[in-house]
């Protein structure tokens, strides 16, 4: 960089055209203190505003979370940016200058103006509800596909005879293509529901398999514990027998320590043997 001014310009350009936009200036407001202060404010507001509106104590408790997540108004300037802006009421918003809508209806084929629909009324019933059983989409699509080939054949024929007459045929083919795409796009919500069903089914299967596996291993452990339980009974019997022998041994004046040692060996033996 020979020219320092040129370097400066480059830097400015870099800032304007950098891959990621710079963070909004209010990111500095998100300090731990401010967040704690906002939480305090929310709690205060919940305590002060809730009881009058909800005299019932039970609903008060259940609604508290709602109030805590509710937007507060009239905050000090440094806390105002801590809560996200309210959701758009009308389902329409702008991002980077482009308008977006929550509901995006598929534009009707006729609305394009020139396109002639192949299927009258778009396959809708009189009450406006779609019934895919009576409207056989697959058949219509197959028919359109065949019509496309036939129309193309006719187009080639016309082009061979007199190329000036071809524009009508081209229009036909264009309409057929538009219709085809429109029918497919109409089918998209259907496919979305269908994939939702498939996903739910898969989840259900997975969950059930998991439950069975857990139950199986649980039963295994239970059986094992039962086995151990029966062992314990043996052990008690052994202990009872052993106490009898120790009593006898005591009576006989033998060393109690040696008697206990034998008892231990006997008990461990009984504990290990069935397991092997």
């Amino acid at each position, binding site marked *: 960089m020979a020219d320092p001014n040129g370097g400066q310009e480059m830097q400015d350009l870099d800032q304007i055209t950098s891959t990621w936009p710079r963070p909004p200036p209010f990111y500095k407001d998100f300090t731990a203190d401010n967040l704690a202060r906002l939480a305090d404010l929310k709690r205060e507001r919940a305590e002060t505003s809730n009881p009058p509106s909800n005299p019932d104590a039970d609903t008060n408790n259940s609604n508290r979370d709602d109030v805590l997540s509710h937007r507060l108004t009239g905050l000090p300037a440094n806390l105002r940016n801590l809560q996200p802006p309210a959701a758009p009421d009308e389902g329409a918003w702008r991002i980077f200058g482009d308008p977006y809508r929550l509901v995006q209806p598929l534009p009707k084929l006729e609305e394009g103006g020139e396109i002639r629909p192949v299927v009258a009324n778009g396959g809708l019933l009189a009450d406006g509800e779609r019934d895919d059983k009576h409207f056989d989409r697959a058949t219509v699509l197959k028919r359109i596909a065949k019509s496309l080939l036939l129309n193309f054949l006719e*187009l080639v024929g016309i082009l061979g005879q007199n190329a000036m007459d071809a524009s009508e045929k081209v229009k036909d083919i264009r309409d057929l293509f538009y219709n*085809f795409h429109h029918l*497919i796009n109409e089918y998209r919500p259907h496919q979305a*529901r269908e994939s939702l069903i498939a996903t739910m089914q898969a989840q259900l299967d997975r969950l059930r398999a998991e439950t069975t596996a857990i139950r199986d*291993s*649980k039963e295994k452990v239970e059986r*094992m514990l039962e086995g151990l339980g029966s062992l314990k009974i043996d052990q008690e019997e052994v202990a009872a027998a052993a106490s009898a022998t120790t009593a006898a041994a005591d009576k006989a004046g033998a060393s109690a320590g040696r008697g206990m040692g034998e008892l231990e060996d006997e008990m461990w033996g009984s504990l290990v043997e069935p397991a092997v």
Partner: protein
Amino acid sequence: MGDRLTQLQDAVDELAQQFVACIHYVHRHHNLETLGPSDEIRVLSKDAEQEVDSHPAEVFKAAQVELAQDLITKEQQIEYLISILPGLDNSERDQERNIKELEDELKLAEAQHQQAIQEKKDIMSSLDEVIRSIRRP
């Protein structure tokens, strides 16, 4: 590789492109004919931009056959894709009922799952107890 609807739409777009390609080929490589005895085919110099680049008759014929076959193949692909569209015989109401049923079943299965986990925890704690209680007396 998208979902089937997207595949179908792509296939239809390809069919349209094939239409254009067919016409372009025929337009570009057909032979030249004289329409009357006074006509004659002008011979352009090799390096000049030629509007028509005639192919030999048999090559042209073979190419036409191939293009036609490709068109038929693509159309059959499209028909196949149509026939395997998901849930063709389910109406919207069927789907909604299906989804509701699945939702209920999922809730039930989830409850059973939780129950099983709880049972597993219980059995694990009792197993734990047993293991802890095992010691050399």
